[in-house]
């Protein structure tokens, strides 16, 4: 193995480690958010201020399909994908991490300018499943999202530099 190849592998590993830490940080926050919202609702109701609404669908989608954040991306990308793939059934308390998405073999991976979203075969929570993406669905997605670069690593596990 050349030195350049070794350096490339090290860079992948470093980036993975940074990603792992970032995901852990996000999970720490998300693990508290639900409890906070619950407490807020309780207190607000007691003082007669029903100011806290349940999360909107878009907010849930942003949490589930993180790290996508902008409403523009939701409107133009996530919304159509949710409709095409029939992902509405996942909306609940389920959350998963970017890392878990990649461990679970991506079925489709979209890269956008400002984030990414991914569909997968299975969500390891509450027995909720995504259906695998079909060729027709993929074509529909590509047709619907011409400005989205489709990487489409269909049925392909993520890169694993350790196996090189």
């Amino acid at each position: 193995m050349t030195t350049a190849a070794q350096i490339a592998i090290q860079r992948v590993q470093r980036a993975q480690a940074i990603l792992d830490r970032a995901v852990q940080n996000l999970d720490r926050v998300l693990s508290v958010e639900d409890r906070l919202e619950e407490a807020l609702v309780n207190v607000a109701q007691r003082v007669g201020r029903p100011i806290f609404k349940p999360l909107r669908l878009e907010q849930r989608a942003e949490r589930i399909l993180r790290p996508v954040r902008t409403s523009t991306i939701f409107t133009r990308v996530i919304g159509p994908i949710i409709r095409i793939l029939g992902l509405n059934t996942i909306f609940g308390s389920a959350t998963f991490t970017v890392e878990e998405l990649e461990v679970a073999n991506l079925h489709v991976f979209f890269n956008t300018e400002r984030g990414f979203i991914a569909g997968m075969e299975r969500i390891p929570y509450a027995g909720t499943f995504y259906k695998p993406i079909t060729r027709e669905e993929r074509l529909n997605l590509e047709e619907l999202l011409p400005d989205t670069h489709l990487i489409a690593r269909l049925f392909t596990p993520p890169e694993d530099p350790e196996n090189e």
Partner: protein
Amino acid sequence: MTTPEQALERIEDISRRLDSGELQDQDLEGPLLELEILREQLNARRREADASITLAVRERQIAINDQQMERLA
């Protein structure tokens, strides 16, 4: 800034005092404000983590691409 663990501790404390009756309805403005502040802080932490993830994913993809190029070379 409050850590998620500290925030959870405060949330649980407020909830416990609420459930036990230690906090009466007229005493709740302070806890409500505190919870709102915690919420803002958690939102800020979440945004920060989101940004880090986005950056790390890009970095990793670039590194993977370079690795593949190197393999082909």
